[in-house]
């Protein structure tokens, strides 16, 4: 690694946000005080509904938007007042923000040029990145002549070519087809393994989130709902919000009422045993519902509404206690063609949430 490399490549660094807030103006407080620590080298995926402040969070870390309050520490240095270029971050913009006047090559090479890297080395580095992104044929074109996906890849190339200490991705794969997306995902994972940058990755894609993330950060209106490993998020959602946000289709949520011994649906059917009193929300993932199975726990009756065939499997939508419940059938399973289905909701797969706050109540059924 030569001197220029040293200048460009920064070591992966801890990122600590303490009491960070961001408001565009008095009315639009996008991020209320936020405390979070992203560990050096960790791959964090940020998930959250549209407009919840994901892009804003990245921009605040990058130094493109000034914080309205709080401190940001990257690699031990307070950076909230530093310029972007002194923070050692690279970023893929949601809208690409390519330089319209530069060719693809120049777009990617620009940060290297700014860092003073020799031309020959630039060509080599850019060449390698372009190959990885499938852009080798387009290096001479201007962004205006590229398709959406091609532009997005250029934006990725521009960020990763520097191999920086902190990599910020704002929905970098949203315009790619599944196959390419899959390839890119593998490449990004590989890249992360190789350069080990602390990575913050905004996406809407569940698969990306589950496979890439060391930890997933779930944002809701600028607030952190949960920040944990993919597994924990999936299997132990901290709230109804998280539960409904993760999984495709998402977890089914049913209002239930406990009478001290059992939980009943709105239509009175018993779904589980529990020594609870009052109203709750019961969650179960579509793939955890067993059809026509009487072996494990309570069986409820439901009416089939419609089915979606996804090729690999099908999604059934049934009506249960006044709510629509989605069921993912196992691969290759034969689905009974009745209009009435008997469902088994295994107790070990049930999640219980507070009716008011939506907070998870772990341990309600022992296993969880």
């Amino acid at each position, binding site marked *: 690694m030569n001197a220029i490399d040293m200048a460009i490549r920064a070591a992966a660094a801890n990122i600590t946000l303490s009491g960070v807030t961001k408001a565009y103006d008095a009315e639009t407080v996008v991020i209320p005080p936020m405390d979070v620590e992203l560990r050096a080298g960790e791959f964090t995926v940020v998930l959250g509904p549209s407009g919840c402040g994901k892009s804003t969070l990245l*921009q605040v870390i*990058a*130094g*493109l938007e000034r914080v309205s309050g709080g401190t940001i520490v990257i690699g031990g240095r307070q950076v909230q007042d530093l*310029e*972007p*270029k002194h923070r050692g*971050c*690279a*970023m893929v*913009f949601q*809208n690409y*923000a*390519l*330089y*319209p*006047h*530069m060719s693809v090559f120049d777009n990617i090479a*620009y*940060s290297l040029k*700014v*860092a003073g890297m020799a031309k020959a080395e630039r060509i080599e580095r850019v060449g390698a990145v372009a190959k990885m992104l499938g852009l080798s044929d387009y290096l001479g074109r*201007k962004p*205006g002549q590229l398709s959406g996906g091609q532009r997005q890849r250029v934006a990725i190339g*521009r*960020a990763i070519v*520097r191999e920086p200490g902190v990599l910020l991705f704002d929905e970098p794969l949203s315009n790619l087809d599944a196959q390419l997306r899959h390839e890119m995902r593998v490449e990004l994972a590989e890249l992360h393994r190789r350069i080990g940058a602390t990575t913050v990755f905004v996406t809407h894609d569940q698969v990306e989130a589950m496979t890439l993330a060391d930890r997933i950060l779930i944002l809701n209106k600028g607030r952190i709902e949960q920040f944990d490993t993919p597994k924990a998020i999936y299997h132990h959602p901290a709230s109804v919000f998280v539960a409904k946000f993760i999984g495709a289709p998402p977890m089914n949520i049913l209002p239930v009422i406990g009478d001290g011994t059992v939980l009943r649906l709105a239509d009175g059917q018993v779904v589980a045993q529990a020594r609870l009193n009052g109203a709750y929300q019961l969650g179960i993932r579509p793939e955890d519902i067993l059809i026509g199975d009487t072996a494990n726990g309570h069986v409820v009756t439901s009416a089939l509404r419609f089915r979606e065939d996804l090729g690999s499997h099908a999604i059934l939508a049934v009506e249960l206690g006044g709510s629509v419940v989605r069921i993912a059938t196992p691969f290759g399973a034969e689905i009974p063609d009745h209009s009435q289905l008997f469902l088994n909701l295994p107790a070990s797969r049930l999640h219980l949430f507070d009716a008011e706050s939506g907070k998870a109540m772990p341990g309600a059924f022992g296993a969880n």
Partner: protein
Amino acid sequence: MTSESSLFSHRWLPLLLVAPLMLLIALFFYVPVFQAFYWSFFLERPFGGGSMFVGWDNFARVLADPEFWEAGWRTIIFMVTASTLAVLIPLILALAADRKIRLALPARNVLVWPKGVAGASIGVVFAFIFNPFVGVLAPLNSAFPGIWAPGINGTDAFITLIAAHVWGGIPFNFVILLAGLQSIPKTMHQAAAMDGAGPWRRIFDVQLPLIMPQLFLTLVLEFTESVTSAFALIDTITDGGPGGATTLLVYKIYTDGFSGYDLSGASTQTAILMVFVVLLTAAQFLFLGRRINYER
């Protein structure tokens, strides 16, 4: 529009749209200019009557006249220096005024004022400012007598003209360039900042390339208009002197033709000037214009 395929394909409407302007231009520009071109092949008496066809004689005569070439050279030198400065200075000002600093707002206002002031009074004022004994350079002159003498020294007179020209050129170019700068999307700055380019560097790598259309506009207009707008200044400040040092081609055409009644000679020079400027502008379009029309 780069790809011509995505355009309206009406047949008559565009003609209708350009018609009013084209009509005015035909009537008040091309007919008069054509008339002038016509005269360049004649020995024309001012009040008409007995004009004599002489073919290319007028051209031969003008092209053989050293004064014409000198005025031509002066014109080119003026075009290059004055128009470069008249774009460069507003550009620097626009870059400054584009920043969020307190002075930017008053500056945006004040820098447009010269346009509102009539040339007649301003020429007098500039002559006064550059007066070697009482003007701003008077201290310099009393330290080194004779170092600044626009009344005697052609170069000094030239500099005076350029200063006045740039002064008058600031508003238009400043406004156009600033508007261009302001329309650069914020993310463009952000992306470059992330790439490690500081604000100074972004000027060259992002801002200037992205306002190329505006820069091109101002440069082309300056190049052509410096030829014409210099006229009023020469007329009020130097009268083409000293010793003809500030006699640019337009001024020469004017004095030859319209105070000296040599309509033929003036028309001939007009024709040559016109061809020259057209070629120059065409070259600008070919070499610059092509490259800068990228899509945002």
